[in-house]
């Protein structure tokens, strides 16, 4: 690793020429060409569905291109599989980690290091490397006992052990607190200074401005621009990424949220039913009519458990733990809580909020059967169900060939609009929505945000659980932070600072005490 900087005489570390990749019905990459120089931090910027993940999976040998060439240090290469990629010196940190929950940290590392047979020696190297880069890890721990941030370290250490010459990071910061993000950037800069190239995938513009030397912007599978992010504004890059002017939200005036409390949660304790889940501890808050209340937090801190406890998918220990418009609902199931006016949009669309193998009509019946009167005497009223589905499609601009289309054939953004629309059209008094715009394109995200604001404006209480801090800062009146199943006191959004929220997000991590040697990072393990 002697080369430093971006010397002109040195061949590109990685060059892609005309990479094309088709999936049934989708052109994921369309003649994409990218050059990454040695020691360069290169951003791959684009919306969800722009083709970023497909492209890096091709580089890592998980997928194969239909057309195009890959050059490594100026020489054409064929990357047959991830083993071949690793042999070249390519490491990858996946967005959805490639980890094994029931196995130990050491085994997880060993699985990603080809030819690692001496587990003792490997264990020593894990400690050594993790120490050198400030990424503390205990090799004998089982992965399911670790926080999301710690899990990401396994992936990074696994790559670092093989002295990579190109490190691919796919959306690495979506699971980190702002402070953890800062620390990750330090590590990446250190690596780049040592000559390792980094291909950094993100749709977060301020991160790219802070970290990257070059940026390639993808839209609809094509390269639309290459730029120096430090010379661009966030707005100009966003326009390149989205390909249109960004819509600004019709934000209602402050002062909302003074109405009567419509959702009250008090002293909610709920042990997890999953073996590796998070227990909810003494959760308490209230959401008033007209208010949007946010819950921030790093993934895996009890958000899912909280949503299930509110929706009625899990029953609370006592009736008064959840009050809907003043009526005790803690012991009621999902259908009965919906009847009281509480509707929900879970984070996972496929298989939770919607049944992928069922039509939109049937998916409308799924949660709307009671409030929309789609059943009479145990018999489905098919025409009414069709009308309901058609109304959602019309009012929420769901792009679909028809209401008999299977949910799974809709794009993420369109299905999300359908699911959100299905709940809003039931005219809920309380709407609980988790990750409303996760994996959704900008147009759909703006429409969903607008719909939530309108709903609150009409007097409903809206609770938004999200890992996207920007989203919460934009939408909410007040917000609280969930961490290891404990909810912080609510803060008025207008006066909350990102630093303060970030500290709360990481505040109680690392309770195992494994990280005390690492000074400033100790609290964000």
């Amino acid at each position: 690793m002697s080369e430093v900087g971006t010397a002109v005489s040195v061949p590109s570390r990685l060059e892609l020429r005309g990479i094309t990749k088709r999936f049934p019905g989708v052109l994921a990459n369309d003649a994409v060409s990218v050059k990454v120089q040695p020691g360069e931090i290169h951003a791959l910027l684009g919306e969800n569905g722009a083709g970023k993940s497909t492209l890096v999976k091709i580089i890592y040998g998980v997928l194969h291109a239909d057309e195009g060439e890959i050059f490594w240090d100026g020489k054409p290469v064929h990357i047959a599989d991830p083993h071949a990629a690793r042999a070249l010196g390519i490491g990858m940190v996946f967005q959805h980690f490639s980890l094994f929950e029931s196995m130990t940290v050491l085994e997880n590392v060993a699985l990603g290091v080809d030819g690692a047979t001496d587990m003792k020696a490997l264990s020593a190297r894990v400690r050594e490397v993790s120490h050198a880069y400030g990424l503390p890890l205990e090799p004998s721990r089982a992965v399911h006992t670790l926080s999301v941030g710690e899990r990401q370290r396994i992936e990074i250490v696994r790559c670092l052990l093989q002295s990579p010459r190109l490190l691919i990071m796919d959306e690495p910061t979506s699971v980190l607190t702002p402070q953890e993000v800062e620390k990750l950037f330090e590590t990446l800069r250190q690596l780049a200074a040592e000559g390792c190239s980094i291909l950094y995938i993100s749709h977060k513009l301020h991160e790219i401005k802070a970290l990257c030397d070059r940026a390639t912007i993808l839209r609809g599978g094509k390269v639309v621009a290459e730029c120096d992010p430090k010379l661009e504004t966030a707005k100009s890059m966003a326009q390149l990424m989205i390909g249109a002017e960004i819509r600004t939200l019709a934000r209602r005036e402050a002062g909302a949220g003074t109405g009567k409390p419509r959702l009250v949660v008090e002293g909610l304790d709920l042990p997890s039913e999953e073996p590796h889940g998070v227990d909810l501890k003494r959760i308490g808050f209230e959401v008033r009519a007209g208010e949007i209340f946010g819950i921030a937090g790093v993934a895996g801190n009890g958000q899912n458990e909280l949503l299930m406890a509110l929706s009625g998918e899990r029953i609370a220990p006592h009736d008064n733990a959840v009050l809907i418009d003043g009526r005790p609902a803690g012991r009621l199931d999902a259908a009965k809580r919906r009847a009281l006016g509480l509707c929900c949009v879970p984070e996972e669309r496929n298989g939770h909020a919607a049944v992928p193998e069922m039509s939109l009509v049937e998916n409308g019946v799924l949660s709307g059967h009671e409030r929309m009167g789609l059943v009479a005497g145990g018999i489905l009223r098919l025409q009414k169900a069709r009308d309901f589905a058609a109304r959602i499609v019309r009012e929420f601009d769901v792009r679909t060939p028809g209401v008999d289309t299977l949910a799974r054939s809709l794009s993420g953004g369109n299905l999300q609009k359908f699911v959100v629309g299905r709940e809003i059209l039931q005219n809920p008094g309380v709407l609980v929505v988790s990750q409303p715009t996760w994996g959704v394109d900008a147009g759909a995200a703006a429409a969903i945000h607008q719909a939530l604001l309108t709903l609150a404006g009409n007097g409903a209480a809206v609770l938004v659980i999200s890992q996207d801090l920007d989203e919460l800062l934009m939408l909410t009146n007040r917000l609280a932070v969930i961490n290891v199943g404990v909810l912080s006191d609510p803060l008025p959004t207008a006066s909350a600072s990102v630093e303060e929220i970030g500290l709360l997000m990481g505040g109680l991590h690392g309770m195992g005490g494994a990280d005390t040697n690492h000074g400033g990072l100790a609290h964000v393990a």
Partner: protein
Amino acid sequence: MSLRIEPRREISWRMLYLTPFLAVLLTVMTGFVVFMFMGYSPLQTLKSFFISPIMTGYGLAELGVKAAPLVTIAVGLAIGFRANVWNIGAEGQLTMGAIAGGGIALATFGQEGSWILPAMMLAGILGGMAYAAIPAFLKTRFEVSEILTSLMLTYIATLFLSILVYGPWKDPEGYGFPQSRMFSEAAIVPIVWEGTRLHIGALIALAVAVAAWVLMTRSIIGFEIKVVGQAPAAARFAGFARNRIVWLCLLLSGGLAGLVGTIEVSGPIGQIIPNLTPGYGFTAIIVAFLGRLHPLGIVPAGLLIALSYIGGENAQVEVGLPQGATGLFQGMLLFFLLASDFLVRYRIVLTRPAAAAPRREVAPA
């Protein structure tokens, strides 16, 4: 140019209904080869297997006699399979139904009364339900796999039946054979086609299939069953209680199997014997899949499998084919069907070799 397999964006309905025929065709073709290797004349054997049994009125009636229990049980099982409830102990529930219904026949031996037969059928249904309640309880209360418990209970039921026919229920005038006395007239199901053995069970089977079709396509219960099977988390989100569906599916399939048990002992058999059926409870699993888990599809599927039973017996007589051939063909048919299912979800295209995205499939059931 080469073959490439890619997932379909939507499942192919055409393939869904074509593949059972494809599976039958492949089975017949394989049978042709197998018969040839075994030294039988393939055409002759296939003819005595599939054609000659249905060339007579008697043969057609027998087809109904064998299809009726298969269809009735398979409809119940298919509803459960849709909900991911794998009751594979229908044979045991059938046995318990036969014991319950047959018990009434023996207790009322020599009596007259039009109430006897309905009482028997009710007892049969309740007997099957009670027996299916055991796996339902263990599944909903302790998460014990219903696959293993329902199957274990089948062995237990068979042994229980054996205790009865070797002991208290043995016909005192039966020369020591392990079987009950023949039921009296009031405990025998009516014949619907004079001069044959085709009994009312055939009409019951059709009624059950139609009722199940209405249940599955028009009622909220049927909708709940499908959601629980396809996406348990979505079912919970909708407020559909899984445990209620598990109970419902097991009681329904157990009750139908129990009803079949009673009809079998009070119809074609006319007494209680140690081996009640040639494995209807298990073969109904094949029928359910062959019928695409669709109540109306199960009717032709049941007729086809019934034909394989009669054809097997016929081929045994006419060309001396061993009895095991029937089971082999039934298993093979299911294999081909499961294999051809691939075409419903994927398509094969001629193109350059390339990859498809890794993806999880939703279980077809």
